[in-house]
Each structure stands twice: as structure tokens, then as C-alpha cells.
């Protein structure tokens, strides 16, 4: 702090004072811009939250004021009317099962592509990653016919299998990048010690891959939890509905009772927002991993 100032007392402190002033000014306007941006993000969420406690009359009287009371009337109504207990269980089962399956198979494939030199590795990778470019709407009729042939219609298996499959491209991209970065000496040392390739993979490589696998699980888990397109196709009975579809059909039936619909939307958002708030760092580290080369 003082070494610079001691050398050239007058000029240095003046310059520093000026710089500090300018930094304060720019940070003040910077803070203002950030605050406005955060307001633009939070205001709609706040509107949704307070709206979920309002009755229809209140909505028209004061759309963005506080509700008369925070009694969970709308929540109780939505919980009962919107098939939420069943849909919640289905959403959890489908998301957890497809994320586990998709992450596991991506991990195995990514290791083979990244570390086991074999002919056609690049081609296999290209085939898998190309899945990102095909719109789901186009293949959905063929998938529907296929699921009927397999006798899986009327179960939640079509959702689990499709989500697991659609999650593989992202899984392979993230995990191939990770496995390529692990030093080769690690697996070579294990091989010299007489470990089989399978043991090497399980005992040496896999424990290291926990964080990137978490990344893949988060990346896929978020969109799978929020997706309503595939359930629209495969959840033909109320017992098969997932949360987004339950809310969507609820919206169609109660489109004028905004408070009730908002309560349903809040209920469907709570689990993922809760996990996000608890694991913010993991989420952000997750989506940025592999996107920026060190």
C-alpha cells in the first residue's frame, strides 16, 4: 500500500485518489445496470409468485400489488384439481431414471471414444452428437409407431427411453472433453500393475469423473424436468402425466382463473428452483464446464 506512495508522495496519492474516484463512479453505474438487469429478471418471477395467492377479482383490481392474504387457497385448489400428486411422482421417476440411464451410457461411450483408440471413433462421436441438430417434432411420429410396436405405449417407458437417448449427445460432448484431459499415465500405470481394462475404468477413471457426470446430470435434468412435448405425445392417460403437461392441460381448463394456474406453475417450478438455490455453484460450474478451455 505505502511503498508506491512513499516513493513519489504527491503525484501517486493524487493519481490514486482520482483512479479510486473513477472506479467508484464506474462501479456505481455498473451496480445500477446490474440492479436493473436483476430487477428485469426478478419482477416477472415476483409477479408470478404474488399472483399465485390472488383471487380472480384481486387480479383485476391490482395486478401487481400484494395479495390480500397469503393463504394457500389457490395452492390447495391447484394441488387437487391439476392432478399434481400423480404428475409429481411421474416427473420425479421419469427425470431421475432417464438422467441416471443417459449419464451412465454416455460415460461408458465417452470413455471408449476418448481413450480407447479404435477405428471409427470419430465417426461414432459424430453420429451421436448429430442428434443435437434433429428437431424432436420430426421424428416423433416414427418414435410413436416404434413404441407401439414395442408394446410400450401406455407406460412411462417411452419417456424414459427417449429422454435418456436425447441426453446422450450432451453427455458425450462433456465427458469426451473430460476424459481426453486425464493424463494417459494414470491408466497406463494401472494396466502395468496388472489391472484389467474394466478394473482400470471402474477404480481409476470413474472416481475422477464424478464432477463432470454431475454436470451432465444437471444439464439434462433441467430440460427433461421442464419438457412438455414428449408427454404431450406419450402421456395419453392422466396417470402418465408429468408436471408440465398437468399444468398445461390445467391451463386449458382454467384459463381465466389466473391465480389458480399461477399456483400450479409455482408448484411445478419449486423442485427445480429449490435444487438450484441449494446447488447454485454446481449448476453454474456445470453449464460452463467444457465451454471455456482453460
Amino acid at each position, binding site marked *: 500500500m505505502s511503498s508506491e506512495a512513499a516513493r513519489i508522495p504527491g503525484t501517486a496519492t493524487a493519481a490514486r485518489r482520482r483512479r479510486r474516484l473513477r472506479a467508484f463512479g464506474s*462501479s456505481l453505474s*455498473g451496480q445500477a*445496470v*446490474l440492479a436493473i*438487469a*436483476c430487477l*428485469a*429478471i*426478478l*419482477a*416477472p418471477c415476483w*409477479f*408470478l409468485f404474488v*399472483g399465485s395467492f390472488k383471487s380472480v377479482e384481486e387480479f*383485476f383490481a391490482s*395486478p*401487481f400489488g400484494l395479495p390480500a392474504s397469503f393463504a394457500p387457497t389457490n395452492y390447495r385448489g391447484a394441488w387437487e384439481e391439476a392432478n399434481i400428486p400423480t404428475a409429481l411422482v411421474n416427473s420425479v421417476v421419469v427425470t431421475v431414471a432417464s438422467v441416471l440411464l443417459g449419464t*451412465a*451410457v454416455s460415460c*461408458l*461411450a465417452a470413455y*471408449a*471414444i476418448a481413450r*480407447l483408440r*479404435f477405428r471409427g471413433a470419430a465417426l*461414432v462421436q459424430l*453420429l451421436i452428437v448429430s442428434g*443435437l*441438430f*434433429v*428437431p424432436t*417434432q*420430426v*421424428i*416423433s*411420429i*416414427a*418414435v410413436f409407431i416404434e413404441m407401439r410396436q414395442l408394446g410400450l405405449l401406455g407406460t412411462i417407458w417411452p419417456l424414459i427411453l427417449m429422454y*435418456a*437417448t436425447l441426453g*446422450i449427445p450432451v453427455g458425450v460432448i462433456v465427458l469426451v472433453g473430460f476424459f481426453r484431459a486425464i493424463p494417459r499415465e494414470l491408466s497406463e500405470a494401472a494396466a502395468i500393475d496388472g489391472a484389467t*481394462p474394466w478394473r482400470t*475404468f471402474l477404480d481409476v477413471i470413474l472416481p475422477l469423473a464424478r464432477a463432470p457426470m454431475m454436470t451432465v446430470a444437471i444439464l439434462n435434468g*433441467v430440460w427433461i424436468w*421442464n419438457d*412438455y412435448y414428449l408427454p404431450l405425445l406419450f402421456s395419453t392417460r392422466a396417470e402418465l402425466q408429468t408436471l*408440465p403437461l398437468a399444468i*398445461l392441460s390445467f391451463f386449458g381448463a382454467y384459463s381465466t382463473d*389466473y391465480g389458480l394456474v399461477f399456483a400450479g*406453475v409455482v408448484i411445478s*417450478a419449486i423442485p*427445480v*428452483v429449490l435444487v*438450484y438455490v441449494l446447488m*447454485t455453484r454446481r449448476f*453454474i460450474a456445470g*453449464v*460452463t464446464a467444457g*465451454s*471455456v478451455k482453460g
Partner: protein
Amino acid sequence: MGVEATAQPTGLVRARVAGFARRRFALWLLLPALVLTLGFYVLPTVGSYWLAFFDWDGLGPVGGFVGLDNFSRLLHDDSFLAAALHNVWIFVVLLVATNTVSLGLAMLIDRKFALRNVYRAIIFLPYVLSPLAIGFIWQVLLSPSIGILNPALDAVGLGGLQREWLADPGTALWVVIAALAWQWNALATVVFLAGLQSVPGELRDAARIDGARPARVLRDVTLPFLAPAFTTVNVLLAVFAFRAFDLVYVLTGPLGAPDGETLVMGTAVYTTAFPTGQFSSGASFSYAVAQGIFLTAVLGLAAFALLAFLGRREKRVL
């Protein structure tokens, strides 16, 4: 010496056996992913895409071979071309917004201050919200009867600007773009921020001590390190903009109300394959597939061009 000579051939044999075992091991590892990918992505894709060259309404038996008819129909279909143009608009507007607003926000957060983690958490929040929730919120916010925007305009004396934002042909597409931007900004800002945090602090300090002005530090130190983040953000943006479906569908429905003004390729494909509204001209599944192939081609082209342009830039600066 003699020992080594005898050891060499067995070493070679062992290496070859190891290579064989390694390839078999690789096959086992690939098998589950390949079964799922071939079964539920490649098979239905191939099973759908060949239909583009035939005439099929989606229900009865597949009609005759029609060659490229579905593709030439596409080039003369004004409503589909308009939809494709809307995708281009979405892409261009978000491209500009992303590389200015999102980048700027990332730079503002990339400084040491008490609330930075809170700001970052808030800015990333829209990423975890469902398109369904975002669509509902925006729909109600802009609704003429109970929304926020119209009363707010009235309050500041701009009551003349009030309108039915999602029903007005002049503003509907802009509302859709704004909602998409609101959602997209979350990911873009956070990826830029991660890129900024990869810039070594000493390098910036050194440049500053050497007397470089902030603009110079930005151009010659910070931006080069951001090159990989630029590539990631803009390629992902192409996928986001050209495959847009969920949020648009919730906001303005399968027909892109009003009057197709907000139709995008994703919703056009869906509406052609599964016509629902009374304005649809009857299903043509094979035509929907042709539209889907067109979508894939445009997206692939955009992503490839971005990768080539930004990837080369990446190599040049590092």
C-alpha cells in the same frame, strides 16, 4: 542382449493381443449408448426422413414416390418461408443482444464486490425455469386486461403506446424475441463470465501497469482470452434460435398468432404434421418431414459457419 531379443516378439504379440482386447472392450462400452442412439434416434430419423420423398398424410398407406416435390413446395410456401425468416430475425437480434448485453453484464459481475454471487445466481435463474412458466408469465404480464406493461405506460404518460402486445402484428414477434432473450441471457452471461474468469489477473495488471487504457486492456488482453467463450455462446445460440419451439408454442400457439406473424420453423413443422386449428389445410406428414430436413440443414449450416469463423479467430488469437 539375448534376453531382450527373445522378449521383443512376445512383446509384439502381447501388444497385438492387448489391441484386440482393447477394441473388444471399447465395443462393450459403446454398446448401450449405440443401442439407444440407433434404436431411438437413428432408426426414427431414417424412418421419418425417407418419407420426405414420398407422399404421405400421416395416417393411411404411404403414397407414391414424389422425388423432390416436397422440397420445391417448401420453396414456394410463403408461410413457411416467413417462418424461416422469423427464425433468422430471432437469431440476428439475439446475436447482437448476446454479444453486447450479456457480455456487458458478465463484465460487470466479473469484479470483486460483495453481492456478485447473488447477482450471478439471479441472472442464471431463467435457465432453470420451464418454458411453460416463462410463457405464462409473459402472456399475463402483457395481457391488456391484467398485465403490467399497459398500466405502466399509462402511469408515465405514454398511454398512447398501449396495445395488445401479443395480438398486434407489429409487436407480436418482438414480444416473442424479448421472451426468448430473457431466457437466453442466463446461459450466455454465465458462459461469458466463466470465460472472463479464465483471464489471468496478472496479465491484466501487467498491461495496466504498462500504461494501457481500459479499452486497450479489453481489446488486447481480455477479448482474446474470451475467444472460446464466444464460440460456445454463439454456436449454442444458433441451436437455440433455429430449434425454438416450446416457448413460442406457449406464447402464441401452433399457428403463430396473429396470422402467422410469430410462426417459426419448429412450430411450422409441428402444425404441418399435426394440424389442430381450423385454419390448417390438412395434414401432410411427408411435407412436415421436408420442412424438418430444411430446419436441420439451415441449423447445420449456421453452426458450421460460426464454428469456421469463430474457430479460426480462436486459433489466431491464442
